[in-house]
Each structure stands twice: as C-alpha cells, then as structure tokens.
C-alpha cells in the first residue's frame, strides 16, 4: 500500500488529489462558517441576534445563501469584455485556494513543503490584485473601474510594508521555509519581541484583503460596490468566497509568522495534549475575530489617509525595524547561521 502511494505515478497522483481535498474541503467549509461567524459576531457587538432562522443558531444560513446565489441569473453587461469578465472571479477564487498549498498545519504537514514557501505566499498574494483590476476593467463601468484603480494602488502599497516585515522575521529565522519559520518560534513567539511589527503586519493584512476600515475598493457608500458592481450570481459568489478565503489565508500568515503556527503557547502538559493543527485553528480564529471586530468598530479611511498610512508611516517604520533587527542580531551574535560559499 505504502509502496503504491509513494513509488508509482498513479499512486502519487491519487495521493496528491487526496492531500489537496484534505486542505480545500475544510477551507471551503471554513469560509462558509466564517460568513456566519462574521454576521453573528457583528450582531452580538451591535446587540442584535443575527441569522437564527435557518437551522439551529442559523448554522445552515451560509448554505441557504449559497443556494440562493447559484440560482440567480448571471448578467453580463452589454459593453463588457466577456472572456475577461468571467475570468476575473475564477482568478481571484483560484488564487485564494492555491496559496494554501504551502501552509503547514503541523510539523511537516503541508501539501508542498517548499524552500521558498514565504516567497510563494507573497507571490500569490501579489497576484490577487489582477482579479480585481481585470474585473474592474472588463466590467466597462465607471464605478467598477474606480474600485479597481483604488484597489491596485492600495494592494501594491501595503505589499511593500508586508514584504519588509517578512524580511525582519526572516532575519531572525534564517530560512524561507514556513516550517522552519514556525520551528524557530519554539522558545518565544515572534509577536513578543517584534510586537510593533505584529501590529503593523496585521493592519497591512487588513488593507491587503480589502477589509474594513480599508475597504475602499468596495466603498459601497461612494462606489456602490466597487469592482464587483456588475457581477451577479456565481461570479459574485466566487469573489465573495475569494475574499473570505483570503481573510483566512492572511490570518494563517499572521499565525505562522508571529503567533507560532501550530505550536502551543507553552511546551507544558495541558497545552501539549491539544494537537498542533487545532492550535493553528485557534490562532486563525482569534485573528479572524479581530478582523470582524475591527470591521464592526472603525469607520472607513479616506483614500489619502490610506496612502499616507501605507507610505509615510508603515514603510519607514518597517524599514527602520528591519535595520534595527539586523543590527541587534549582528551585535548579539544571534544571527542564524546559513552556510556561505
């Protein structure tokens, strides 16, 4: 049996499909329940009940929404670029799925444990902007186009500070492998020594996923719904799923880079009884809760304030922090040893 799965081509392909399903099925279920969680948490914060009709505690609400959405008509605007219009939601959705290939849910438990895992994540998240730009352009609508332009500028700006923060984490780890990044936090999670960067990274993650208070690409009060104004039915549903999958992805990135991934808070008995993947899920849930909390609390940023925060506050801050980290590691001799030529 083991020989079949690891040493024959058919076995390897079957194994790969199974591994992929083992990641995607929980992810999609997670997305479905994240929408419910968002509505429930926001309802609790606003002293409402939230969805409570479909199923016990509204547990079937997400599926009811999905079925409703599937049965709607797909409307393609007259002046739209048909092929690109339909391509954009698929791109957004599939990118949100593809990134999960490298997320380790336990020691060595990733579909692809590659050496440049963190760069892969950065690359995939930087591709995310294309789904939005193409959607905005192909819709042939002013609101959609303005939403796309805003989103392009926003995502490119915040990626810069995300990149620099990742560099300062990598300085302390000495490897681009996500598994190594988590293992480097055995003794102390990076959110403690790098607390300011943890906060900056979290805020940048909000901006990168286009969540409130940085949801200018959607901006429903000015741009109706921004880049997906013209979308309906399943195409809209894919954008929706993509956005929530991206939220979970960003939360898992925060967990892996700063909250010790699958590691328990302390290596002591009651904590080590809980299996690693569950710890990762707890941390992701915590981050998602904060995402929702922020949405229920803060008003939307104005566009120039958004750009100012990205370029004039976060960029210098993360640059200085990176240099300070490097200097500190050099001075104390803690710099991780990577073989030289």
């Amino acid at each position, binding site marked *: 049996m083991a020989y079949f799965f690891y040493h024959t081509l058919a076995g390897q392909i079957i194994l790969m499909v199974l591994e992929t399903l083992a990641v995607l099925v929980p992810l999609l279920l997670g997305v479905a329940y994240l929408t419910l969680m968002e509505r429930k948490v926001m309802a609790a914060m606003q002293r409402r009940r939230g969805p409570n009709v479909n199923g016990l505690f509204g547990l079937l609400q997400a599926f009811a929404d999905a079925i409703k959405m599937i049965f709607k008509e797909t409307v393609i605007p007259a002046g739209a670029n048909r092929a690109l219009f339909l391509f954009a939601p698929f791109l957004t959705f599939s990118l949100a799925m593809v990134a999960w290939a490298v997320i380790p849910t336990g020691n060595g438990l990733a579909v692809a444990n590659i050496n440049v895992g963190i760069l892969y994540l950065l690359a995939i998240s930087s591709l995310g902007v294309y789904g939005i*730009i193409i959607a905005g352009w192909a819709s042939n609508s002013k609101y959609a186009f303005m939403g796309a332009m805003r989103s392009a500028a926003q995502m490119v700006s915040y990626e810069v500070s995300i990149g620099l923060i990742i560099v300062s984490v990598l300085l302390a780890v000495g490897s681009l492998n996500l598994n190594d990044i988590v293992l480097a936090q055995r003794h102390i999670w990076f959110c403690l020594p790098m607390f300011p960067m943890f906060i900056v990274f979290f805020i940048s993650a909000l901006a990168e996923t286009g969540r409130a208070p940085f949801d200018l690409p959607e901006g429903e009060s000015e741009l109706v719904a921004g880049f997906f104004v013209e979308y309906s039915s399943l195409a809209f549903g894919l954008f929706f799923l993509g956005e929530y999958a991206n939220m979970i992805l960003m939360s898992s990135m925060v967990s892996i880079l700063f909250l010790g991934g699958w590691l328990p808070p302390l290596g002591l008995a009651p904590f080590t009884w809980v299996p690693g993947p569950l710890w990762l899920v707890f941390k992701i849930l915590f981050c998602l809760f904060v995402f929702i909390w922020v949405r229920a609390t803060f008003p939307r940023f104005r566009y120039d304030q958004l750009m100012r925060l990205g370029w004039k506050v976060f960029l210098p801050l993360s640059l200085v922090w990176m240099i300070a980290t490097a200097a500190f590691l050099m001075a104390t001799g803690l710099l991780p040893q990577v073989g030289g030529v």
Partner: protein
Amino acid sequence: MIPQLVFYVFATVLLVSAVMVISARNPVHSVLFLILAFFNAAGLFLVAGAEFLAMLLVIVYVGAVAVLFLFVVMMLDIDFTKMREGLQHYAPLGACVGGVLFFELIMAFSDWKMVPASTIAPLTGAPGLTNTAALGTLIYTHYVLLFQACGLVLLVAMVGAIVLTLRDTGMGRRQIIDRQHARTPADTLELVDAPLGASVSAQGGFLRPHQSYHETSVPGSYASGGMIEAEKREEEV
C-alpha cells in the same frame, strides 16, 4: 519524460503569449499576455530548479511592475486608426531590425535539436545550499559593491522621477495630521460672554454674520439683504 513535457508546455505558452503581446489589437490584452509570459518564464525557472528566481520574477515583475503598467495602459485613450497609419512609415526599419535578429538566431541555433533530458535537469548549485542562500552569498558577500552601485542607480532614477513629477504649487488643500493632533480647543475656539439680545438690538433687529458671503455678493440681490430693492427690480421687469 514529465520534466520535458512541463518544459515544453511552459516554453510553448511563453512563446505564444510573447507573440500575442505584439499582435493583440487591444493594448490591455497585450499587457495581460505579457503577464502570462512572465508567469511562464517563472515556471521555466522552477523547472530549472531556480525556485528563488522564479518567485522573485512573479513578485517583482508580475506583482508590481506589470500592475503599474496595466494601470497606465488602462488609462490611456489610444486611437488605433492613428497608430496603424505609422505602419507603412516604420515598416522598412522594423523589417531590417527583425531580419538582423532572425539571421542571428539562425546563426546561433543552426544546430538546433530537441532538447536532451540532461539540459532540463535542475542545475546543481553549490552543495548543501538552497539556491536562496547561494544567491545571497554571491550577491551580498562577493559582489556587494556592484550591488550597492545598482541600488544607487535606482535611487537616482527614483529621485529623478519624483523631481520631474512633483509640482507643489502650494494651492492644493492638504491634511497635516500632526498639526491636527497638536491643535487644542483653546487654539481655535473662544468662549464669548454675550448678553442676551444685545447684538440683536445693535444691528437693528436681526443678527447677521460679519464679513460673510452676504456682504460681498451682488448688491441688490436677495443674498445681500436688500430684499426690497431686488423685488423692485423684478417688478420693473
């Protein structure tokens, strides 16, 4: 077998999309094909075992450069008929350049054959090193001066671009957040002890703002307060 297949798929898509970049009628499609070409080039790097370069290609070119490119091209208002007018004019020159390049390609690849499996096999780098570490050592240790010089060139270009485009006329309204935060109620607001009805009687019965729009507006209009005068004029008309 499989690496060869993957190589040919990436290479074919790369070449086709590169041709589409110059032959697509719509410039936005051109840029999207360019992005596809970058992406497949990254795939080729992966096949060659240069994972770091592959990821960097996607992050830098696809994720940042091409986005800005797409940004600009989408905003352009291009008149296609005008663009085609130039075709006759530039055709001889273009043909010359193309011919030279084609001749050179023939010279370089005259003994072209199906790629042997050995050339597709991943390159073997320094032993015991990931290629990120190998590249890092090479650039930041052995060629650090050249690297710094490159950075300096880019910095100059960046400063130049900013100097060329920055037109601060001092006319725009801008928000200086530090100043806003430093402002206290005492700086801007004043509590005045006004006796009840005092200003009303001084102004002859009604209160109006001092130095406001109403005084500087057209005399005789409703806004100036000269209602009677304005009504008279209307009656005349």
